[in-house]
């Protein structure tokens, strides 16, 4: 389950029309959500609140051996109106699962953002500030996010911790998203790492599409899927080492009539790593994902399988009545996932390491129950068990 603050940041992206998925870094977002999810450790409590549309606070308390915690504040210049109360929060937003990509949105024109008042331009760039301090460790995380233009965003994240080299590290990320393609440039103070990422979407360019006269054929056959290719390149100036990878992805779009699926292939030519991911949303409640890694230098391979299952309550006594409702009748305006009793995420790899996550809502509390197991180690099957509770108002 997403942290409250991550959820708020996502809503900021939403509100400022920034497409998080249109980035090379998000090429394997589905696989990360279904295969690389973190299982909680120990007990963790989080109390958060979006006190005002622009301001959020969150406190966490954890106990993994010792009691630790964190305090975080967030300010957004853009009022956020998504529901964050844990009682009526949309679980789809709080839980990362299969990423069903949408049609690319045409980026805003620059002048759309201009606001003039009595001959002066008074519009402001949307900004998000976020800080979090972890208490016993005295570790500080800070984030500065700014929409420079409709197609550009600056993201500066910093960590200050006495345990790190030079007392901390700062990462500057400049992101450009033109819809058809996106580029990212980054610089990290740690070993002066420079990075470039790029993603190119094949197919129609969302910026020019509406102006052209469309033929009947095109209207009848909207694109069912999107093919994207990207690459990333890193180079550390100080340690004179780098990294490179390229990736391809094909994913179905909502127009696709069958079940949605995503295929991703990433390759690291330097290290000889090849990774293929196939993810399927087999139904409204089920997503499956598999990943096969192969290294053609060391011939090492790895297979991971994962699934996400939404379990809904079946209230049989009213079902017949619901069926009789006419489609145009207005459904009772309760949360769409009100009948969700829980979401099960599970993954397993070829070494029989298993991760299980059970997430859901009880009354006004969001809970995450997780465990990671290692069946190969008979004497200690449970590697970690944990529970997270979130309450937000």
């Amino acid at each position, binding site marked *: 389950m997403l942290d409250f603050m991550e959820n708020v940041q996502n809503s900021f992206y939403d509100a400022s029309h920034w497409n998080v998925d249109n980035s*090379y*870094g998000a*090429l*394997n977002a589905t696989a990360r959500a279904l295969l690389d999810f973190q299982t909680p450790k120990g007990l963790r409590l989080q109390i958060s609140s979006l006190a005002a549309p622009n301001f959020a606070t969150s406190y966490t308390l954890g106990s993994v051996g010792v009691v630790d915690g964190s305090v975080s504040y967030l300010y957004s210049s853009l009022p956020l109106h998504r529901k964050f109360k844990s009682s009526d929060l949309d679980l789809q937003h709080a839980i990362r699962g299969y990423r069903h990509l949408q049609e690319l949105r045409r980026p805003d024109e620059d002048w759309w953002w201009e606001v003039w008042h009595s001959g002066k331009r008074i519009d402001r760039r949307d900004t998000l500030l976020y800080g979090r301090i972890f208490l016993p460790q005295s*570790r500080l*995380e800070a*984030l500065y996010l700014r929409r420079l233009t409709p197609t550009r965003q600056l993201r500066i*994240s*910093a*960590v200050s*911790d006495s345990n*790190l080299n030079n007392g901390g*590290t*700062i*990462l500057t*990320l400049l992101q450009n998203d033109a819809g058809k393609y996106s580029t990212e440039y*980054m610089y*990290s103070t*740690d*070993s002066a*790492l420079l*990075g470039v*990422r790029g993603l190119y979407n094949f197919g129609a360019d969302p910026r020019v599409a509406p102006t052209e006269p469309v033929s009947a054929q095109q209207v009848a056959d909207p694109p069912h899927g999107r093919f994207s290719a*990207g690459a*990333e*390149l*890193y180079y*550390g100036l100080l*340690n*004179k*080492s*780098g*990294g*490179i*990878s390229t*990736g391809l992805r094909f994913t179905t779009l909502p127009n696709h009539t069958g079940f949605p699926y995503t295929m991703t292939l*990433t*390759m*690291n030519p*330097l*290290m*000889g*790593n090849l*990774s293929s991911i196939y993810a399927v949303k087999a139904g409204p409640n089920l997503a499956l994902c598999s990943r096969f*890694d192969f*290294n053609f*230098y*060391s011939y*090492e391979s790895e297979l991971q399988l994962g699934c996400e299952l939404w379990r809904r309550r079946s209230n049989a006594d009213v079902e017949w009545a619901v069926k009789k409702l006419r489609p145009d009748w207005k459904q009772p305006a309760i949360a769409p996932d009100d009948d969700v009793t829980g979401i099960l995420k599970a993954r397993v790899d070829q070494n029989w390491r298993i991760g299980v996550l059970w997430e859901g809502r009880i009354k006004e509390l969001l809970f995450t129950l997780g465990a990671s197991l290692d069946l190969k180690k008979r004497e200690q099957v449970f590697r970690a068990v944990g529970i997270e509770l979130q309450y937000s108002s």
Partner: protein
Amino acid sequence: MAFNFNWSPLIADTSRARDMLTTALNKSPKPPIIVDDIIVTELNLGTTPPELEILEVGDLAEDRFRGIFKMSYTGDAFLTLKTKVQANPLNTYLSTKPDFASPQPLAAASGLTIPLQITLSDIRLSGFVILVFSKQKGVTLVFRNDPLESLKVSSTFDSIPFVRDYLQKEIEGQLRVLFMEDLPAIIHRLSLRLWSPEFQELESETEERLDVSKETTVPIDPLATPPHDAVDAFGNLIDESTISALSLDPSSELHASFSQKNMIRLAALSESQRTLSLFTPGIRDAVFRAWASNPDRPESGAATPLLTQSSLSRIQSTFGSVRSQASSVASGSSGQDTQSSRPTLVSNYSAPAGLGLGANRARGHQMRKRKKRVVDLRKGRDGAESSGISSEANSPLPSTNVSESASVSAEVIPEEREKEEELATPPKSPVKAGVHFEGKHGGLDVGEPSRFSEKTVATDTLLPPAPLLSDPPKLSKSKQKPQFHSHLEAPEPEKKRASSRPPLSRNRLRSTQQATSPLLRSLSFDKVSSLSAAASSKLPLSPSYAESNASSGGILEQAWMLKMAHEIAKKVQEEKDGASRDTSPQVQAPSKGLWAGGEEEIDAPPAYVA
């Protein structure tokens, strides 16, 4: 005396050492680049043994040994390790960074683990080694400083400079830890297995436990039985009696050596020095610095009849040395030459030891003082003779051993020596000394401690050099000596030369200086106890002896321990950058008159030039 250092059997079977190394290497947290266990696949100690130079022997008996060596190794040993490393630098780099500010690359950080074979060869070691051996407790070997000078790391990645440099750096770091922390434990366990059969049975289980609990390198409760290799914060050996004070269940003999009352008094005394309190508790048999400042005082002072010149001078020397704390390491280097004469002290000690049965309280006291003294064995000849002269000394070997312990301590602070010279009686002619020597023994036989004053001590120290005497022990000594050299010191001709030819005059003069050299004594504190133990094994020494011995140690010893740590550390430092001063032998040759030590202060003695 000689050490037979048998290297070849060590080479034969290294499988056990391999296993232990494997455990040791996997003990400490590994750097992120190493993603698998480190397995030692091959271990060859090579055909060239390390060069060991005895700096000091603190305790020597048939079943025990304690000494400080200077070790240098340039042999052909090699070690092959097998592990798996992460070849992607981005992966290792990111694994240590917080997620929040991480670039979070998509696949650029994907790992590539590569089996890696590392061969460590051309290992160059040089350092001071404290070696303690006891038949019951095995061998303990502690490095006084970081011994690793250089080594060559050759691996699968030699063609990639970045990885190669990284590996070299990481491995050197790990090896330093290994030498300083793990190797002593490994050697200890190996030796226990060899010598103590009962431990062999325990060992299998112990080893498993050791893997879990790392602190217990010695599988003996440190409080239940005193550690045989106790080392204080500065790496100096701690007197066993001191340890026994710490231990909850001291052995019977040591138990007697510390009385609660004495402890309290000593504590009060040391406390009084730390504060401005004017109150100084009266302690019997204690010597105060103020008294020592006047050399005549003890002789005349009826109140302290037990004070001997030796004890006085010792105190004085402590005093002096403390003042001359800043004295450079160079001064320490003077040791080598001066050591030659030191053996004379042995006679001093060995004679009473031989006569030991008649030891009364006073004698015991004297002996205790004496014991603090250390005598050089390096120039074993003199020592041998002295022991021979005092024919009653149980066996020439042990006594010489005692003297041998002197060694390092020879790094004397010159100021002190001069100071002590003032205190000591002027040097006398060798012939006379010989006469005195005889006379002294007679006196000793009678057991007149009060008479045993400055003069006798001085004459003692003025023992004539080897050529004057032709006792059988000497012969054996001289026989042993070449052996010793061939084993341990062969590669250093200068030293040999110095030791083999004892010029009379120089020797004699030195001896006077040396006799009182304080560092010697200070260093030998630890030896005293062991020595006494050794002596007691042969002679029925009264417990009071041990008691007095222990009680006298306290404060001064502590101060000296500190001092010594200081000195040794300095010396090590000096030696490290003193390699350029290699020219000393030539310079010394012409001016080796009375004060050879003078120029030695400037030049490192050959013994310390690696």
